[in-house]
């Protein structure tokens, strides 16, 4: 596909997305809208790992560490300030700082990929257990009681910027969450098109070559990791806003594993795929939860096995390859002879 066509498609897709998000509240009822709001918040979390894993080559088993830190940072700040504006900012900054510290030791300590997985997993467990054991009046930050396993109920939800008296309605919450998702998506797309993004991908491709050309892979990976942490933290704030509640289960390992499943199912190395994977899987899980016949974890495991065996590339890349296979028969004529015949025989570079 040539660049101009791709850009036009992306622009058209963005316009459609903006429109669909805008009219959604008048199309579906409140319950469905709340569910979509949750999916949108989770999709932001999916994007955070899609970016650092699919493009940065960093497989974090504990992306929920940043998600949870963002959620708690938001909740604690919102209870104390009674205004969501600074709370949302803290939900981005706190996980980013934590990712910076963790990333510094992981990447500058030259720790291998396997240990990166172990460390991120362990950090998530440590956070889970630490927050879990904060019941009692002794554990409070400012006015905010941490509440241990019971979590923090009645967290103030989003309000208009710097106007705590005007709390967002469920419709406004939907718009905020969905447009944040779209914004994060477009921001990552833009970043990946810029030199900085190309360098991130190049480091994933070959760290040795990148360093022999004068790039510092440790720094590049650390910055990628920090950005992923910041996005996951923002997702945490959106999640807490959705439920007005946060508990230690936000750090749970099962959620960490679920993100990896979303991406595997949706398509590693893309941004759209993980969003699709997240929505599809979360919808299935929610649907199964409403009936008694099947255990959702069993189904989730089954779905993962089917995808790894039959569609290892994931939904989105497979669909895209199918479309590309059907379309090119008509394309070359339109492009004329200016397209070199030596172009890649299959669209492997589409990631």
């Amino acid at each position: 596909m040539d660049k101009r066509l791709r850009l036009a498609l992306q622009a058209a897709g963005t316009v459609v997305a903006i429109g669909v998000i805008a009219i959604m509240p008048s199309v579906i009822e409140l319950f469905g809208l709340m569910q979509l709001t949750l999916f949108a918040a989770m999709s932001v979390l999916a994007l955070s790992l899609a970016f650092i894993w699919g493009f940065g080559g960093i497989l974090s088993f504990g992306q929920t560490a940043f998600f949870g830190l963002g959620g708690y940072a938001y909740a604690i700040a919102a209870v104390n300030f009674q205004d969501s504006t600074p709370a949302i900012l803290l939900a981005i900054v706190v996980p980013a700082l934590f990712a910076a510290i963790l990333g510094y030791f992981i990447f500058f300590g030259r720790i291998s990929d396997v240990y990166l997985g172990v460390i991120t997993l362990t950090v998530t467990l440590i956070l889970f257990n630490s927050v879990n054991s904060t019941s009692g009046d002794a554990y409070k930050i400012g006015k905010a009681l941490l509440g241990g396993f019971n979590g923090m109920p009645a967290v103030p939800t989003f309000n208009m910027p710097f106007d705590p008296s005007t709390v967002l309605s469920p419709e406004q919450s939907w718009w905020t969450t969905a447009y944040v998702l779209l914004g994060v998506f477009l921001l990552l797309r833009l970043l990946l098109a810029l030199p900085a993004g190309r360098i991130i991908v190049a480091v994933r491709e070959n760290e040795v070559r990148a360093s022999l050309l004068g790039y510092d892979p440790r720094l590049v990976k650390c910055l990628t990791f920090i950005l992923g942490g910041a996005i996951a933290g923002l997702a945490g704030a959106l999640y807490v806003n959705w439920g007005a509640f946060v508990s230690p289960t936000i750090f749970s390992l099962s959620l960490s594993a679920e993100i990896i499943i979303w991406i595997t199912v949706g398509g590693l190395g893309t941004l759209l795929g993980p969003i699709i994977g997240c929505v599809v899987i979360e919808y299935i899980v929610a649907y199964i939860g409403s009936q008694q016949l099947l255990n959702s974890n069993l189904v989730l495991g089954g779905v993962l096995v089917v995808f790894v065996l039959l569609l290892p590339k994931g939904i989105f890349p497979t669909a895209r390859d199918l479309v590309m296979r059907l379309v090119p028969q008509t394309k070359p004529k339109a492009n004329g002879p200016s397209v070199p015949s030596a172009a890649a025989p299959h669209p492997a570079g589409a990631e």
Partner: protein
Amino acid sequence: MADLVPLLKAEHLTMRFGGVVANDDITFTLQEMELRCLIGPNGAGKSTFFKTLTGQLVPTSGTIAFRGMPIAGKASHEIARMGIGIKTQVPNVFNGLSVRENIWMAVRRKATPRQQGPAVNAVLEMIRLTDYADSIVATLSHGQRQWVEIGMVLAAEPELILLDEPAAGMTDEETFHTAAIIREINQTRAIVVVEHDMEFIKQIAKRVTVFHQGRVLVEDTVDKVLADQRVRDVYLGKKVAA
């Protein structure tokens, strides 16, 4: 010699891996603009030597100075920024990216955004891969990927170029082209080439250093080295016999 600081000076360089001594007390000096060939049988320590020069390995002992600045133990990217470029023995390229992007990665460190396009095209022209500019590197042949890597090294415009078996996997015609390019870039910068192909060495070499069992065996002009009986014994002799 206070008047002229050599481009590269390694002194008493030793690299041990456990009980194996890959480089044993190597002293090596390269002048500005010099073209040097390193030869030696497999396991002589040539690639290890290159790895210590580029920061991929930290030498067990000894010093390396690049224009008088110590570089032993520095990180690879720092050494690369000082002006040493290397084509490694096993091609190190960005397999998932296009040829153009590979070259661009090397160009963009020095060129302004406006210069980058023409600079990339010039390198593509030189390595004869203009027609393959948008191909994914993983889909190319081994020889073409060698070219991509050589192109990246040239595009970064280093002061010193290290080439580890640049002609491996190339046809005779491609090898000839490689030799021509090496002579051309030697007009402006220093090059060290590791190669097994004797015909190739004869095409380009002026001075040759022979490695054997981690040590420098001989260092002399190409004719004298090829006539040296010890060199024939350890290296050429084996090859002829085989």
